[in-house]
């Protein structure tokens, strides 16, 4: 079933400029698209900039009974600026025997791939760059490119720790991507489409979750997929932790084992890109979870974009919590959990979803 996509952000911009999207010239559409993409990218980067040097520290500090940054600006918020300047102005050290240009491309691939996936995510309040029919497949495909970046970084650094980290990253991503995609597929069975859509398009993944599941008194509970199949939700959350490499699955970096894994040899801007890429990935994980299981940007009273932000930050908080409090599993245990546990569970979940869908239909 093909449904017309919701109005894209580019079209909205064109309308704001007083132009008819159907008649605008290709050059103009291209220009406005760049503008729209810049807006979406900036939104993601803004979240990341707030999370990386500041929120993450504050969150970890409150878990560990500390105060953390509090000197620059109110509640230490100025640290964001100071840290950015500090990180960017550091010397860029490139190992003598590094394999260029793979070494230089790796951080860009990592950060870029995560950012690209946001193109189809409905962020509410009409912010969605495009809504292709293959939306979900696109998201998973693009996000997986990150593994390539990790392998490039690990191999090109010409460092044994990086090499081990790169190998670990690939082994882990393959082991967890399959359960992740299979669990995502259960949502596709439920919605009957790969298209992400948004709240106004009922025959899409997000749209399908807007129906009322049941009502308690005057409160109607929407049929968010996380409510319909909590098992799939839990499974996806766990696989997502592995996908973004946070405890208990932070094996590719594992500072106490292999120093910093694939990013051992990276410094200055390249390191910032890696750091950025990781955080964008965490937010992308949050965005996918919000879209697939939590009704996308839907929510009462507040505008969609606010709800969307709340949801992705909720997932971010969870990853930080796990990082603070959960030990790291060993690499062989991780692979075992992935292939013997998660994969079987995600297949079982597919069956379960088919049954649920069958009963509802």
């Amino acid at each position, binding site marked *: 079933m093909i449904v017309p996509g919701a109005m894209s952000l580019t079209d909205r911009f064109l309308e704001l400029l007083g132009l008819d999207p159907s008649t605008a010239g290709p050059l103009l559409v291209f220009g406005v698209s760049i503008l729209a993409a810049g807006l979406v990218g900036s939104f993601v980067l803004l979240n990341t900039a707030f999370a990386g040097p500041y929120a993450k520290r504050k969150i*970890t500090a409150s*878990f*560990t*009974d*500390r105060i953390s940054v509090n000197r620059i600006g109110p509640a230490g918020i100025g640290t964001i600026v100071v840290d950015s300047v500090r990180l960017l102005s550091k010397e860029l050290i490139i190992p003598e025997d590094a394999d260029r240009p793979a070494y230089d491309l790796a951080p860009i691939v990592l950060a870029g791939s995560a950012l690209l996936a946001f193109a189809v995510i409905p962020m509410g309040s009409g912010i969605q760059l495009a809504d292709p029919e293959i939306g979900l497949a696109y998201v998973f495909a693009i996000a997986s490119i990150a593994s390539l970046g990790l392998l490039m970084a690990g191999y090109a650094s*010409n*460092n*044994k*720790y990086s*090499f*081990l980290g790169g190998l670990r990253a690939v082994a882990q991503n393959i082991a967890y991507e399959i359960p992740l995609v299979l669990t995502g597929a259960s949502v596709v069975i439920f919605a009957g489409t790969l298209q992400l859509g948004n709240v106004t398009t009922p025959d899409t993944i997000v749209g399908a979750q807007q129906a009322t599941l049941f009502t308690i008194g005057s409160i109607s509970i929407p049929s968010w997929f996380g409510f319909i199949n909590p098992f799939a939700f839990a499974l996806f959350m766990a696989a997502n932790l592995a996908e973004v490499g946070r*405890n*208990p699955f*932070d094996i590719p*970096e*594992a*500072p*106490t*084992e*292999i*120093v910093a894994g694939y990013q051992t040899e990276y410094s200055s801007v390249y390191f910032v890109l890696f750091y950025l890429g990781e955080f964008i990935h965490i937010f992308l994980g949050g965005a996918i979870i919000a879209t697939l299981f939590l009704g996308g940007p839907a929510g009462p009273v507040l505008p969609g974009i606010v709800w969307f932000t709340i949801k992705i930050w909720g997932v971010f908080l969870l990853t930080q919590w796990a*990082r*603070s*409090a*959960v*030990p*790291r*599993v*060993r*690499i*062989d*245990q991780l692979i075992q959990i992935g292939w013997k546990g998660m994969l079987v569970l995600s297949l079982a979940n597919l069956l379960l979803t088919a049954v649920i869908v069958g009963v509802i239909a």
Partner: protein
Amino acid sequence: MSLQERTPSEPDVGVTEDGLDYDELEALLEGRVLDREEHVNAEGFVIRPDEVEDVLSTLKEEAGFDHCSAVTAQEYDDRFESIYHLKKYDDPTQELSVVVPTSKDEPVSQSAAGVYDTADWHEREAYDLVGINYEDHPDLRRILLPETWQGHPLSERYNQTQPQVVPLREHANPLEEDHRGSGDDSDTMFVNIGPHHPATHGVLHVKTVLDGEQIVDLDPDIGYLHRSEEQMCQQGTYRHQIMPYPDRWDYSPGGLLNEWAYARAAEDLADIDVPEYAQVLRTMSAELTRIAAHMLAVGTFGLDLYGDFTVIFMYAVRDREVVQNLLEDLTGQRLMFNYFRLGGVAWDLPEPRDEYLEKIRDFLDELPDRLEEYHNLISGNEIFQMRAVDTGILQPETAKSYGATGPVARGSGVDYDLRRDDPYGYYDELDWDVVTEDGCDNYARLLVRMQEVEESAKIIKQCVDLLEDWPEDDREIQSNVPRTLRPDPDKEIYRAVEGAKGELGIYIRSDGTDKPARFKIRSPCFSNLQTLPVMSEGEYIPDMVASLGSLDIVLGEVDR
């Protein structure tokens, strides 16, 4: 295995009701004893350098000396000498020193590494610093000093003015072929873990050969923090100048426990009494130190298993901070306490006493809740158990052979604690238990430390009660000790206390001056670290890191 149920076949030659019968032991060795020396702690049997293995294995198999505490090497005007300090794990008060003199021109002695695994490293150290060659030693390399070092610093012929060149070899090609594993088609990789590595707890360098993620071969390379502590102590006077050094061995902080090791050895050497009140103060402050040290051990072990930014480390450090503040109030220092004196302690409890004791009580009252939190957070966590249970296995017999002591030995079910077995201070008057676990793995070692914190708290509580009720006119903190202490010449002593990491022993030989002629430190970490290859070979890197964490080494004490 209970200590009481000895079967008749067990080796116990020479064991009598009131200590060891050295004549019987000499008879056991069938004329291989050339001479007998009188050391303060035990008798010394002088034997020929080519009969070391023979004599030691007889003593180990038939007389039950299963613990080789340390090997002390030293040079006299006319000879070199290695002393093997033997003990029994069942009863460490049964001691025997085996003295092996060698000629000055050709200092060659048979190695004991075939009998006691622990002799491997101890003899390497003796070779490195003093220059005695051990025949048939499996791997006689330098251990504390760089391989290119010229001369042996503790020997008389050492030229102190000679410049030493320590080259920094170019880093090896990371993609170099390496086939050190077993099998013809093994494809292995050599990795330097450390000296700059987040999990080595200091500057330890572990030369590792990996097959994939598994460890094929492992060789700890120590000495990066070697500060000639023994030499420095030999240049200080007994009375005051040595006491600050022990604080710098195990700085986790094991400071007061280390000071006690020196205090005990020197006091026994010079027949100095310590007033009872001072002993209670020592016991209490030493146990506070032990809690602080174990907290750090638990926290850093968590760090090794969790990665950075982890709660358990911060919680442990937060609670350790309370202990540090208590110790600061008592000693005036947070790390380098310098609180013990020969014959007592530096000063009494801080005034107002009641307030201080109340502070300690508050800490002790909160402790059970804290430990409960730790147990919820780490030892009760399934993922944690997945990582720690059945990894880093150290069998009891292996632990004994490597001279492992402290929580490492007790985690392998070896019931050995000098506080109980060779009582000193005020320990035998108090009610507490020695903690052992039979798991032999990383988890058992962690549990031992956490339970020892509870036992230490018990000891401190009793000390606080004692101190509170101590009559005011009887608070003697220092006995009469001559201003310049000159123990009688040619007295030798090896005395140990239960440090935070295990048996911390000091060997002192006096020569009639106010400075020791030989000062040897038996570091528990040094012996414990030797077990790392046994625990880790064949395991994964993360397990090696966990094992290293559970050994709880402090490089300041390993390298001295």
